[in-house]
Each structure stands twice: as structure tokens, then as C-alpha cells.
């Protein structure tokens, strides 16, 4: 028996998540040291306008977009690997991004070329390149995408090895530690409109591609043999899914650092509300991911105000706590 109450209409869940996102973004534009005051006076006061329009709003919209990318990637990973514990970082993208940031900080962090380089490419670029290279390395080690288990193992190996290399760089160059810490804990503090537009653009592309591939994920849920027998071009579909997964994860990680649990928890939260096919699953997981990271960002800004908590810490605590509760509730219902 599955969790009770999982019979909501996907349309209503989508609408509810959209309303929550809009509410969260509006609330996010009002949270800060000057509170609602900036919001109220923004039309007349340039500083207040700058606070709301250039700092708070892009941060909230960006948190929502990054969460949506991770939620979508989580649903894709769980569908592709047919494993509810799969998360977007499974193919080594997180460690690759960490290594990219560590290398960038170590090479250019203290050099006279730092400013020029960081402006041109930036840590976000390094993180994205690292994430994509890590996924490519995983694909090479797994000798393609034919064997899901080999792909999974290659992802774990790449994750461990690249993570160790990033740690080694941090050990040899303690000056990069602070920069690395910010990246590893995840942060939405520095998201601007450019980042928002980039993430929203990638989200649009990834959502369209995921929607187009969703019926293949449904067939894959019946096993490789059945999917093949139904005429699914398994190899090319897997390549396409891994590309979308890498693009969504790499883009989110590059902008916000390593935000834990959103990609894993968002699809689970959706499943607890609605039982549906992958076309709705990926879209709802994206919306849920957006709401999750937006909520975590709001809490991170409000809990220790005027100080801020790293958003990744909150997502880990809240996401992990929720999954534990979900597991406990599922076991209780099953044994009832």
C-alpha cells in the first residue's frame, strides 16, 4: 500500500505550486534588513528600488529557478536510473563543479589576473565546466550509457575521485578554503538578473526536452527489455536524458553552489501528493524544487536575521528531515 491521500489532480498541484512560488518571490522581495519598508517606498526611493529590484527579487527568482532545475534533474535521474534514491549529483557533477571551483580559486584567486579572469569566466563558469567534464568522464568510464549500473558506479567513482582532488587542492592551498566553503554550502546571495535569465532559459529548454522524453521514461519504468520491445531507441534516449540532466545540474550548481537534497526530495514530495506519469512528474518536480529552494532561502534570511544561514545547510536539514518523516509514515501505513 502506498501513502494515503496521493490522489490529487496534477493540475491543481501545479497551480498550487505556482501560487506558492509567486507568493514566495513577493515575500522574498520584502525580506531583508529594511523589511517591507523598501518594498513600500520602492516607487519613490532609488535606494529602496535598488534593494528590491537589483538584490532581493533576482535572489528570490534565482533561488526558485535553481531549485526548479535541481527538482527537474532529480526527477530525470530517478526515472533514468529507476531508483528513488538517485539525485542530480549522481553522475559526478557536484564533485566536478567543486573541483572546477577549487582549481579556479587556486590558480587565479590571488593572482594579478584574478579580476580579469573571474570577470570573464568566473567561478560559475569553472563550476559549470567542471560539472560537465565530470559527467563526460563518467560516460567515458562507463563506456557509454548502455548499462545503467555501470553508469551509476562510474558516477560514484568519479564523484569520489574528483571530490578527493578538490580536497587535496584545498589542503595545499588553505587560502581557497573560504571561497570553497561558500560554494560547498550553497548560496543564493549573489544571484543577479543575468544569472536568473540564464537559469530560466536553461530551465525552459530542459523542461521542454524532459517533456518530450517523458513517455520514454514511462516505458523505461517497465525495464530496459520492455522499453526496447516497445521500440524505444534506448541508447540515444539515455544520451539525451544524461545531457539534459548534466545541463540542468551544471547550470544550477554553477549559480548557487552545492544545494543539498532539493533534487532528491522534490520528486518524493510530488509523489506523496500525486501519482502520475513522467510528463507531469518532471514538471511538478521542477515546480516543487523551486518552492523548496525559495522557502529555504527565505528561512535562511529570516532565521538568524540580520545574519544569514547558508541555504544548503537548511535544505539538507529540512529535506533530510522530511524524507525521514516520509519514510516513517510509509512504514507506518504499510504495517497498518
Amino acid at each position, binding site marked *: *500500500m502506498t501513502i494515503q491521500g496521493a490522489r490529487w489532480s496534477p493540475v491543481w498541484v501545479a497551480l498550487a505550486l505556482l501560487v506558492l512560488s509567486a507568493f514566495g518571490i513577493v515575500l522574498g522581495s520584502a525580506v531583508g534588513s529594511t523589511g517591507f519598508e523598501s518594498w513600500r517606498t520602492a516607487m519613490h526611493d532609488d535606494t529602496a528600488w535598488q534593494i528590491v529590484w537589483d538584490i532581493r527579487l533576482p535572489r528570490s527568482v534565482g533561488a526558485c529557478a535553481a531549485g526548479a532545475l535541481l527538482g527537474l534533474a532529480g526527477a530525470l535521474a530517478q526515472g533514468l536510473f529507476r531508483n528513488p534514491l538517485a539525485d542530480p549529483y549522481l553522475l559526478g557533477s557536484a564533485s566536478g563543479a567543486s573541483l572546477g571551483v577549487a582549481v579556479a580559486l587556486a590558480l587565479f584567486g590571488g593572482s594579478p589576473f584574478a579580476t580579469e579572469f573571474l570577470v570573464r569566466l568566473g567561478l560559475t563558469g569553472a563550476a559549470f565546466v567542471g560539472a560537465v567534464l565530470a559527467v563526460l568522464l563518467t560516460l567515458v568510464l562507463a563506456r557509454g550509457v548502455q548499462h545503467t549500473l555501470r553508469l551509476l558506479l562510474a558516477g560514484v567513482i568519479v564523484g569520489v575521485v574528483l571530490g578527493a582532488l578538490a580536497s587535496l587542492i584545498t589542503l595545499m592551498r588553505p587560502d581557497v578554503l573560504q571561497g570553497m566553503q561558500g560554494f560547498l554550502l550553497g548560496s543564493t546571495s549573489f544571484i543577479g538578473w543575468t544569472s536568473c535569465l540564464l537559469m530560466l532559459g536553461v530551465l525552459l529548454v530542459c523542461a521542454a526536452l524532459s517533456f*518530450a522524453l517523458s513517455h520514454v521514461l514511462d516505458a523505461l519504468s*517497465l*525495464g530496459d*527489455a*520492455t522499453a*526496447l520491445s*516497445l*521500440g524505444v531507441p534506448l541508447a540515444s534516449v539515455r544520451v539525451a536524458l544524461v545531457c539534459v540532466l548534466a545541463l540542468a545540474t551544471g547550470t544550477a550548481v554553477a549559480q548557487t553552489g552545492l544545494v543539498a537534497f532539493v533534487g532528491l526530495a522534490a520528486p518524493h514530495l510530488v509523489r506523496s501528493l500525486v*501519482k502520475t506519469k513522467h510528463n507531469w512528474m518532471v514538471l511538478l518536480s521542477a515546480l516543487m524544487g523551486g518552492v523548496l529552494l525559495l522557502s529555504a532561502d527565505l528561512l535562511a534570511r529570516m532565521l538568524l536575521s540580520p545574519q544569514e544561514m547558508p541555504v544548503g545547510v537548511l535544505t539538507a536539514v529540512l529535506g533530510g528531515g522530511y524524507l525521514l518523516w516520509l519514510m516513517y509514515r510509509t512504514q507506518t501505513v504499510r504495517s497498518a
Partner: protein
Amino acid sequence: MNSHTMALRVRDVCVSLAGQEVLHDIDVSFVAGRWTSIVGPNGAGKSTLLKALAGLLPATGRIFLFDQELMAMERKQRAQQLSWLGQNESASDDLRVWDVVMIGRMPHQNWLAAPNAQDHAVVETALQATQAWDWRERSLGQLSGGERQRVLLARAMAVQAQVMLMDEPLANLDPPHQVDWLEQVRCLTSQNTTVISVLHEVGMALHADDMVVMQAGRVVHQGACADADTHRAVEAVFDKRIAIHSLDGQWVAVPKL
């Protein structure tokens, strides 16, 4: 029923798994519109042969689906003509029964196209035939093993293929539903569908029209289920630990204690 048309012809087929040849020089034909069961002891290569027939495993030699070479057929065309029901087929607990069966219509649908009225009608018929209609709105996770198996059978039937390949389709089914399955197979063959199934229960396999008997990766006998030669071949591959007798006009396999 056309007893002369061959639905599948297998010529000199060998299959290797992990570098080891597990099927050796298979040469066998399956008559269209009949039910053939494949039997043999564990490790005889029954499921491997069935997968090779479905084009799911790389094989040397030649396999013809009606008159077309299987591996040369377009993927979609092959999927429309060959339906596959795997052993212990996994399925996501989150999918609704209706959606699972609708997946069987994939070979007939265009990319991104919504299911049409015919797809809906076929899915309904398949669900009614397997008596799974009442659960169509439930998720798979809410069903027992036997109920899931009936839904997966409906999924395979929804393909409306001319040839159905089923690996241990009776797994998890209780005796009444095993009888229902037999009736469904009879209904399918009466509509000229070819059914090829791997069954480990020899008693159930003897209800088929024809039987392929396998041992150690080879076909050792092919014949009608009612033939005495077939019975002797089955008893031989099971080391004479079973005996086949007639009971009330049906063949039954009895263990020799």
C-alpha cells in the same frame, strides 16, 4: 488458423552472454496462430531464446518474423508486430494501472501525440480481458503481485501484436487466474495471434498446442503437446523425475517420487 504460415523462423542462431555461448545452433520454427510453450530444466536457455526471438539480445544466425529478417526491421514496425512480457517485469509503483497499459500503445503512437480513441478502446479491452478494469485508477503500488501481473499482461496485450512472447507469465498468479490466463491465450490464438511462452510449470505448458523442449542451450525436440514423442523428450530432459499422463482428457505432469 493458418497452420502453414511461420510466424517466427530461427536459423542457426547462437547467443553468447559475457563471452560464453549459451545458445548453440538453434533451428526452430513457430507456426502462426498457435500457442507454443518452451520448457526445459533451469539453465536450459529458455528465457535467452525468448529474448533472442524478441530481438533483445545480439545473436548470430538469422531470425525471420513472418518473411522479414527481424534485425533488419524498423524498430517501430518490429514493436508493432512483437509484444514482450518479461519475467518479473519491474514497474514504477507511481504509475496508474491505466497509464501502464497505455504504455503498450507506444508502438502505434507518434512522438508527443496524445492517445486517440482507438488507443483508449484497446486499453479498455485489455483491462477488461485481464479483469483489471476495476483498478484502472489505482497506482501499481496498491496492487498485489498477482494483480500487477494481470496489469502487465494487459499492457502486453494492448500492443495488439501478431506475436506475443511471454516469459513466465503465470508468476504470482493464483490457480483461478492461471485458468483465466489459459483462456486469454486461447482467445488470442483464435484471433490468429501467435503466443510463445516460457513456462516452468510443465503441467501448464502441456496445455499449449506445440512444445519446444530445451536442454543445455539446445533445442532437443519440437512437436505437438499431445505427441508421445514430446512427452518422452520432456521426461528425458527432467531426468525422468516426472511422468506425463492423461487425466480427464488433459495432459498432466506428475512427479515421480
